[in-house]
């Protein structure tokens, strides 16, 4: 059994003339909490969509848990959980109905699905609105429900696209603790977030994608070692990120031009 949970080889996705993801070679080990970073439009969501079966690659290969994704699609999907961009909820179901639906879709038996639904709704603090449609949930509640749906079948890899966006501090703390326990049990978590502090606190490893290319990959310590910080101060992930992705002088000049705002 391989130690690598996610492997991509020259993973590429083109949309017409635009190459959104360009020959990306990812390596994520089992049990890693992996943060996938990049500026807006860098190719993060496209990569995560390909890794979760929502988008077909133009070329390249993907292996998840040692299985080739294209030839073992259903077997791979059975072992992964996803919180996709936009959450992918059926808004006219109640929270419990939705979790029951997803549990059954992932092949859980009826009794187990009901049991896990109750436990997850309790854990996510969603059990007190049993008759509310998901459409009437707040954004944060929907996010928690999407997370609950992603873990109901006990996945071995969890893909989370901006999982803490809109989630209150109380729930976010509980979720972080849960995710930490999951990685301790060998679950691999692949997370994208724009909040670098969260990634720095949670993730042991990161990958940085810029203009479709994977420009850095490794543990935060390894990346830190590659970036010279001020003497005596610890380089933050934000500094690492900015030094790798950079910010062009033109953009700064344009910002200074917006005198009418100040």
């Amino acid at each position, binding site marked *: 059994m391989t130690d690598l949970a996610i492997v991509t080889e020259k993973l590429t996705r083109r949309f017409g003339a635009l190459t959104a993801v360009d020959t990306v070679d990812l390596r994520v080990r089992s049990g890693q909490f992996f943060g996938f970073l990049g500026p807006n439009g860098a190719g993060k969501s496209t990569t995560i969509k390909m890794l*979760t*079966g*929502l*988008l*077909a690659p133009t070329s390249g290969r993907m292996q998840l848990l040692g299985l080739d994704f294209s030839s073992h699609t*259903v*077997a*791979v*999907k*059975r072992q*992964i959980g*996803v919180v*996709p961009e*936009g*959450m*992918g*909820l*059926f*808004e*006219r*179901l109640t929270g419990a*109905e939705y979790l*029951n*639906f*997803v549990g*059954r*879709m*992932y*092949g*859980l*038996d*009826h*009794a187990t699905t*009901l*049991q896990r639904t*109750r436990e997850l709704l*309790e854990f996510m603090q969603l*059990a*007190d*609105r*049993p*008759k*509310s*449609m998901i*459409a*009437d949930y707040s954004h944060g509640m929907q996010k928690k429900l999407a997370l609950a749906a992603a873990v109901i079948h006990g996945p071995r890899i969890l893909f989370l696209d901006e999982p803490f966006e809109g989630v209150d501090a109380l729930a976010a703390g509980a979720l972080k603790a849960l995710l930490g326990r999951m990685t301790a049990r060998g679950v691999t978590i692949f997370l994208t977030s724009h909040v670098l502090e969260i990634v720095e606190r949670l993730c042991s490893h990161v990958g940085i994608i810029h203009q479709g290319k994977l420009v850095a990959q490794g543990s935060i310590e390894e990346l830190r070692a590659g970036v010279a910080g001020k003497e005596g101060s610890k380089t933050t992930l934000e500094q690492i990120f900015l030094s790798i992705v950079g910010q062009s002088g033109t953009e700064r000049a344009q910002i200074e031009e917006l005198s*009418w*705002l*100040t």
Partner: protein
Amino acid sequence: MADVAQPVGIVKQIGLIAGLRWRMLHNNLRRKQNRLDLIGLIVVGLLAGVVVIGFCIALFAGTYEFVSSDRTTWLGLFFWAIFLWWQLFPIVAAGFGASFDFRGLLRLPLSFGAFYVIGLAYGLADFTGMAAVFWLIAIVLGAAAAKLSLLPPMILVTVLFVMFNVAVERLVGSWVERVLAQRRSRELFFAGFILLVVLLQLIGPLADRYGDSAGPWLVSLLPYFGYFPASLAGRAVGSASAGDYRAFLLGAAGIACYAAFFGGLLWLRFAAQFRGEELSETPAPERAIRDPINREAPADALGLLSPEVAAMVRKEFRYLLRNGFAAVLLLLPPALVFTLISQSSLLQFMGSKGISPELFFPGLMAYIVLILMTPAYNSFAYENAGVQTYFTAPLRFRDVFLGKNFVQVCLIVTELTLCIAAFCYRVGLPSAPIFLAALAAIIFTVVGQLSIANWSSLSFPRKLAFGQVHGQRQSRMAVLIAFAAQILLFGISSLVLGLGRWTGDRWLPAKAFVLLAAAAIGGYVSSLDALTSYAEKKKENLIEALCR
């Protein structure tokens, strides 16, 4: 210090919104899917155009005849017909409506006046409104051709009549949406609707029992209809034709009062929307309910189905029951069938013409199938972002279709059973050859359509808003495919029935339909795997269309 934006005039605001809509339409055409949709729209538009033009010619000729023969007040009948069309057709065919996305507009510093005018303008931008306006123009032209001096009064009356109809249609649509948005009121609405359907069944027997004595009473009610806008319009034009301008102005003022009254009510509705009224499933946050956790899981009632298909079936049933407007539409076909077969006069008429009432049976069954199968051609319409689950979950897409089709078939079987029972009660059981031929033909047309509808749902998906009356524009290509498939399958069925009559073999249609049904089932089963591969190919298109 930041600049402060200058207020923009109402005309400028409307112009900006119109420009925005045009730019959105233009940009949409960059996508292949939308270009195909436009082609579909043009073809459907041409077909609808033929119908509209046909009625235009008929109304022109009718108006010319009425005015020429000095029966101008009879134009009131045309105004009544247009009024009923304008107010009832949007409920039957909401898919033709144009959307008025007021929530999107509220982000902008739009004045309420501009908001109101845009809301009204959308009432004229849908098929129903446009067709009605064309017909009214035909009436105006017909009157002018017969008597040129009638042109100015006709224009005034028609403009007022249009204003009245737009205001009523927008008002009714807005209230229906508001009522159907909440689960509790939706349930009450359903209960009322079912009660109405039951009461409709009493019309036939009541007419038989009291028809003769009620006739004069009903005739005595007719004058009261004279105070409604359509009759007022007819009378006003008649008065103008007779040179009685005082009566004409009185009639026009009456229509203007109606328009102002409903315009005022609409003003109040739009004002509520402008203030930020949010339609919601639940009227207010529920109180916290702490149910003791029941460790005993109940048995799965759908245990015979695979877990994936059972999950789909449950989800589809829930979506169907919660989508008020779609559910109401499902109740309409049996309601119409019950109403038709409860008419003794119709059955007597058929008997007098030597038509066996049992021939009515296949026609009714075909009608039910025709109406109920149409939504299957865009079966992912209400999934929205949830459609992603079908691609992230470890399932084969055939399970998704099996679940959806199972619910569809259950629905058709239920409605057909009710209709067959009602038919047998009123008319009697059809002869065995007709009955079996009709049943086999139903299996053939339903199963045959399911394969095509599944393919169409993947190829031409279009997102529809849940429980809304307006703004529900179906995928035009899906509509075209549905038309083509239904024409093909019903054409084959008619051919088979014709062959039976021609050869004189009463059992031939039943035998032929059994063979066709078996072939359709075989085709359906073999299509499932092909559709699973096809879904994989079309997933980006599907997700993009539904998650946008």
